[in-house]
């Protein structure tokens, strides 16, 4: 049931955007029939559309995650719907310029209310872990500034000769970010290696619990009562939104 007074959704992550778009377009037109169209938009495709101006910039960034709203959903879905009808991207660019949400919805073939409803449903069915992640990101003040498009320009040089001291970003790319995994109340595990997916993180937490319990048994002794609390968690990178 559509909830009339719900606040407009404006924090869909990229995978959620892709899921909503696929559902919108699949019921409206047979996308597979047009073989030049990739049904599920990924990060690079969205960025390309933003360069062309057919999709707006993300509504906001939380840390490194780009968050999207209804207009973005409608724009991507309209592009896919028009491509399914056989228009080239150049024609779509010139045809979609300056369209309102209502017109985009007409192109997709669904009323605005249905799109809103779909987005609300996607938000409601977010997995608990995803919700916790997003809340944590929202709670951190400001978060780390997203490297965004700038990261794409920095490529680690293969013949590292004569690098200047003033060019730090190349070094930053080569050092993988530290990821934090809280284990229990008092301990935070710092992970320095491959980026962790959600399941891996959960498993790591599970495996680390006995170790932490064992260590805590030492910490329970009087000397360690003043043990400092763990550092607050740094904002975590979102998988799926990596550039």
């Amino acid at each position, binding site marked *: 049931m559509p909830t009339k007074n719900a606040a407009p959704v404006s924090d869909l992550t990229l995978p959620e955007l892709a899921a909503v778009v696929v559902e919108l377009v699949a019921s409206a037109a047979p996308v597979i029939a047009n073989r030049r169209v990739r049904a599920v938009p990924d990060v690079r495709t969205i960025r390309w559309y933003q360069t062309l101006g057919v999709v707006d*910039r993300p509504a906001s*960034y939380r840390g490194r995650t780009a968050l999207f709203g209804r207009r973005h959903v409608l724009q991507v879905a309209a592009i896919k719907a028009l491509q399914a009808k056989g228009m080239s991207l150049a024609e779509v660019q010139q045809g979609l*310029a300056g*369209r309102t949400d209502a017109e985009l919805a007409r192109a997709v073939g669904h009323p605005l209310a249905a799109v809103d409803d779909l987005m609300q449903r996607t938000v409601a069915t977010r997995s608990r872990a995803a919700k916790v992640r997003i809340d944590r990101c929202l709670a951190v003040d*400001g978060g780390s*500034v997203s*490297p965004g498009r700038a990261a794409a320009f920095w490529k680690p040089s293969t013949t590292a000769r*004569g*690098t*200047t001291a003033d060019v730090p970003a190349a070094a930053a790319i080569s050092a993988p970010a530290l990821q934090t995994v809280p284990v229990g109340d008092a301990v935070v595990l710092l992970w320095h290696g491959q980026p962790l997916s959600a399941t891996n993180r959960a498993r790591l937490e599970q495996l680390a619990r006995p170790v932490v319990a064992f260590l805590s048994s030492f910490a329970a002794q009087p000397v360690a009562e003043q043990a400092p609390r763990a550092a607050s968690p740094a904002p975590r990178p979102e998988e799926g939104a990596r550039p």
Partner: protein
Amino acid sequence: MIRALSPEELNDMIGGQEESGFGALLTEHGCLPLRVLDVDVSIDGLQAATHVRQVFANAFAEPLEATYVFPLPPRAAVIGFRMTIDGQVVEGRIDERAKARAAYDEAVAQGRRAAIAEEERPNVFTLRVGNIPAKTAVLVEFTLVAEVAVDTLEATYRFPLVVAPRYCPGTALDGAPVGDGWQPDTDVVPDASRLSPPVLLPGMPAPVALGLRVRVARTAVATGTRGEFGCSLPATEQVTDSDERLIVVAPGQRLDRDFILRWRIGSDAACTSTVSLEPDTARPRGLGHGTPATEADGDGTFVVTIVPPAAPAPSRRPRDVVFVIDRSGSMGGWKITAARRTVARMIDTLSADDRVAILAFDDTIEHPGDAPAVEWATDRHRWQLVEWLGTVDARGGTELATSLARGFELAEAEAGGPVGEARDRFVVLLTDGQVGHEDAVLRKLARSARTARLFVVGIDAAVNDGLLGRLADATGGLVEFVESEDRLDEVMDRIRSRITAPVVTDVALAGSDLTIVPGTLVPSRLPDLVPGVPFVVRGRYRGAAAGRIHVTGLDATGAAWTAEAMASGGTTAGLGSLWARGRLRALEDRLVTTDDTSLEQRIVELSTSFGVLCRYTALVAIDPNDPDRVVACDPMRRIIQPVDYAVRRDACCYMMEADGARCRSQKLRRRSGALPPPSWLSGWDDFFGDGFTEDPLDRVRFQAADLVAKARPRNGDPESVSPAKVKRLLRGTLALLEALGQNGGQTQAVTEEIERIGAAFALVHALKTASSVEPTSLVRLLDVLAEFAGVPTEQRWWVKVA
């Protein structure tokens, strides 16, 4: 005479069609607002009066706000601004930038029609036209006074047509962007979103109708030889009865490069030193309010042009030369080749007394050898450098600031050089200048540049002449622009000779019968005289509008040198505006490098007094009496006009025949048709670091289209294709099939394509094994390739038209 467009003609632009069902284009022009760009130029001596007209049309049934990010010549003074809707002309005014923006926002919120033009960089401007009524067109006009660059042989007029994408470093800022472009604002470039209009995809007919006409006085052009005009767009010369020569650009051109017009100048104009004056009493009012500004003391403006003496016998001093080469992704293709060629040629001119170093930069700085330092240019070292140059390819971003500063450090380092010997120091920068952090580059340069001379070679068809000119002005250096490999051939000798000591140094100006007001000279750091480059200085004078100006200096031997120029009488219009523009740019640069905020007030005062646009003021036009105010819909439709991607291939040079004959092109390299060539595609990848094709087969399709176009023999007859061409075609087709095989198995679609083009394989085999070229098999192979690539029938050159 510029004929004003009537309202009917304006409204005809949008075709007046009803909003059709979605899925079809609204009109044959689509929904993009910009429909016409019209440029009218009238050249007189060193100045070009330019009139730019832009027509925006709203095809929707609700009001629209259109934004357009466009370039203008960086040294031109914008002195007029006007908006016309429904036959009603609204004159613009100049105001401090924040106030102008507030006035525009308020007017648009009230539903009134308004336009605002702001300067982001010396050569990038943003125009916003708000509340364009439904189904109407708006005409916006700019009046400029532009410079004509003159050297001893030829004159050049350059008008840019597109803002190329720029590299904007830094970490992205949080919060809403300040502009509508696609690049995020960063801490180093806080207005990156104002410099990056969206990119228009090729493959559709050009949405903007370009009209460009240039009038040059007959006496200014060298007579006798045919084809004395050269132009970067196809153009014809039309016969006129007046004493002007009229060059008209062919219709249907895309806005993807600079418009450059060159002509050989008459010998009398080339050899004399002149002074021209414009008293303030004769200066037109224009947008300025006329009250005198503290910066503009004096009674009038002068410009002195001195022709430098010829180069003396080559008894030159030893030199230290540092080459700084931009090898970023945007330099891909012919540009990095041109840069390497130029550096190799300049290294050739060095001798064992000189020292040389090369730095090649993108995100990092690379150099041959273990440590970056100037080394003696022995024959062996020069050869090693040239060999290393051959490995320099285009990739990565553009860290211009640190690299240029490093180049200056190297050039001015004393260690290792013979003490007490006077050496000339040069830094040669080869780049396209496509960076967004111009202020940061300038700031860093001002801290590190002391005695070394800078020579900039700007290599691009849509070069960032604003930045490169600023770099040259800040150090008293020279800049040379090269827009194609053909142009490089023409100016290579001149470029090679630039890294020699100037003929006259320590230049000073003095006037007799009129006094030069101190501190008003533009450029403020008087350049040294270099053979072949006329010395042009503008400034303010006090006294009667007649007299002489003496230029003094020291020549190569240290002896005093002097030259004199007499005011020829009469006034030259536009001098005041050009001087004011130069002075404003100098003050803006000084504000950037010294952070002296009191300059801002002086800049705004000079800009509003002379009516010349600068970064701290804006032009705004608001419709005062609006009988039926548009009711803005909420949220208002807003479109930012996408622009063509600046052409990466060589810009062709067209030499025109006089007297109305059709132009012919030398070495036409443009491939006609909708599909871009592969080098465009790979260059894009390198620049943005993203692949953009949706379809993995697109790249292969482009290759197929390229093969088909390249196989064409001169007369277009498939029977006369040479065996070498056939071999190349076959090799290309096999590579293509291999590429397809790598993509294969992904989707049903790809497998079908492979099956379809698999027929090509049999044909290739047949052609390879046959002893002579069989035209029918060749034609069938070309058909298959063209079908696969989607080449339209009119470009299939082997198809005989019945």
